[in-house]
């Protein structure tokens, strides 16, 4: 029985455990948010102007389901989340979930473009850097990953606007209507990820190239390109795939918020910031929950892929 078969056979039990754990995560997260928003702070007060009357407060509290005993509020809250019903956005006076679904494609476009770019450039860079440590590709990937770690993304975006939109006038600076307007936000999102992917692949590949099976392959007289691209790369790819998933989650969880704000790109992140500006907590919560939900699903899928890829993890 091949290791892959064994991994596939153990999968159902593993899946069950994971689904249970993820449910726990969702309930845990919603509870944390409930505690922070309802018990520590006062959402009604946060949404109304300072001079609002007591009657205004009561009306809004009732509209939001924030009157009555706290345990009942909690149960209603859990029920609404289970049904993906977050209520009406105060700003746009229509279901918050509709707005979220409308804006979702914008965010996914950016993420997909940025991940694609990061893989297309980062993977070759990482391979060359591993084969020739200390040479130009290595230096470039080190510089890229360090700058990705150190440059604030909002500032990087502004610099790119300054260069490509203001000075050179090649690309639009903001919005999503003009052709090519996705280029700069995608570039801003991709640059830090690109450096990290190159560095991760580089170090994983160096470890693999120093291993015994590579030495055996060399002794057998296999061509160097085949050793690197087929044997070593396959094993080195496992942590890199994990990193890719992590990058995707990081983009959803925060990077797109900043980048979409800088480039006025119509996506979920921009929606979150707009909701804050308009004190629309209903919409903000809908966005946050939806993204948290996406990330839980993403992690779930990644775990499966990871298990199928890495035969060393016994299920």
């Amino acid at each position, binding site marked *: 029985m091949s290791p892959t078969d064994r991994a596939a056979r153990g999968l159902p039990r593993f899946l069950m455990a994971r689904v249970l754990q993820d449910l726990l995560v969702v309930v845990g997260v919603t509870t*944390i948010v409930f505690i922070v928003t309802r018990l520590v702070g006062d959402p009604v007060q946060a949404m109304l102007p300072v001079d609002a009357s007591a009657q205004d407060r009561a009306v809004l509290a009732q509209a939001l389901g924030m009157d009555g005993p706290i345990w009942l509020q909690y149960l209603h809250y859990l029920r609404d989340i289970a049904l993906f019903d977050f209520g009406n956005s105060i700003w746009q006076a229509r279901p918050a979930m509709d707005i979220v679904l409308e804006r979702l494609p914008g965010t996914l476009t950016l993420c997909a473009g940025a991940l694609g770019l990061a893989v297309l450039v980062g993977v070759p860079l990482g391979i060359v850097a591993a084969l020739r440590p*200390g040479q130009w590709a290595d230096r470039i990937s080190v510089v890229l990953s360090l700058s990705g770690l150190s440059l*604030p993304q909002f500032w990087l975006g*502004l*610099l790119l606007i300054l260069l490509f939109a*203001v000075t050179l006038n090649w690309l639009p600076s903001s919005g999503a209507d003009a052709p090519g307007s996705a280029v700069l936000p995608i570039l801003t999102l991709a640059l830090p990820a690109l450096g990290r992917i190159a560095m991760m692949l580089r170090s994983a590949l160096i470890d693999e190239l120093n291993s015994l099976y590579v030495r055996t392959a060399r002794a057998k007289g296999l061509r160097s390109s085949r050793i690197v691209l087929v044997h070593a790369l396959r094993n080195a790819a496992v942590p890199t795939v994990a990193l890719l998933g992590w990058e995707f*989650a990081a983009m*959803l969880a925060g990077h797109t918020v*900043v980048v979409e704000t800088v480039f006025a790109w119509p996506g979920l992140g921009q929606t979150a910031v707009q909701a804050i500006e308009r004190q629309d907590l209903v919409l903000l919560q809908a966005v946050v929950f939806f993204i948290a939900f996406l*990330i839980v699903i993403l992690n779930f899928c990644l775990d499966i892929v990871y298990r199928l890829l890495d035969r060393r993890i016994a299920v």
Partner: protein
Amino acid sequence: MSAPAWETPLPAVPRARGWRALSDRQRGWALAAILLLALAAVALLLPWLAPYDPAAIKLSARLRPPAWEERGTLANLLGTDNLGRDVLSRVLHGARLSILIGAAVVAISASFGVLVGLVSGFAGGRVDTVLMRWVDIHVAFPGLLLSLVILVILGPGPGTVVLALALNGWMVYARQMRSVVLSVRQLPYIESAEMAGARPARILLRHVLPNLAAPLITLMVLEFARVVLAEAALSFLGVGVQPPGVSWGLDVANGRNYLTSAWWLATFPGLSIALTVLGVNLAASRLRLALDPREREKDFARRLLARGRR
């Protein structure tokens, strides 16, 4: 007859002095101390060096470019903003809040995370399972978004920013400290101490805790860099430090409105963030090389490899 070999004096070995006399480990600690002092000095001294009050509005001197530009004056080296405030003074003052917030967040989240990690690793069993599951749940949540929600509800400001960031930052300490505790627990000298009848608290504080220092300090430095970036992002989005306060992220957000006419407004505060974080990150990687023997070996092998290939 000549004197027997053991009586001839040994050739004088030149004693290493200063930096060279230190072991790698001692150098690491020295480096950490220097970094800490440098950051404290920056937070204390830079605002004091500022030529003007960072909040002093002077509408007659609006949007002056930096000194080397055509209309620039030496009075405002890095120019002035849309209200005539001196950009250099604002950049120098911004350092204090960034560093203070970073230090506060790291201190709070590290203390809590280390506590959770120690208890989890040392107690094991059901306690460990529950604590680590809690960490898993917390890690799965989108950090920046949770911070946004917290800041909107509790109201923006330096204090709430620290709270929001610390709430999202402690898990990484808990995980790492737990793994260190688990590996240290296996060592013979801990067993001997247990055998000798030492109480758990004594073992934990006397024998386990010192082992955590090296990985902890490296992690704290790395986290500091991350927190400075996160604070800047929150302030940029308008939910962090609020206008009378001076923050680099806030100034970049302000400069964004004048990107086409006054590039210096967004450029210099952003550059300060980037350089601060870069410096701290570089220090962190040096620190790891100095304090972690495995990293040192890897580095050595890497250099050998690079030399061999060339």
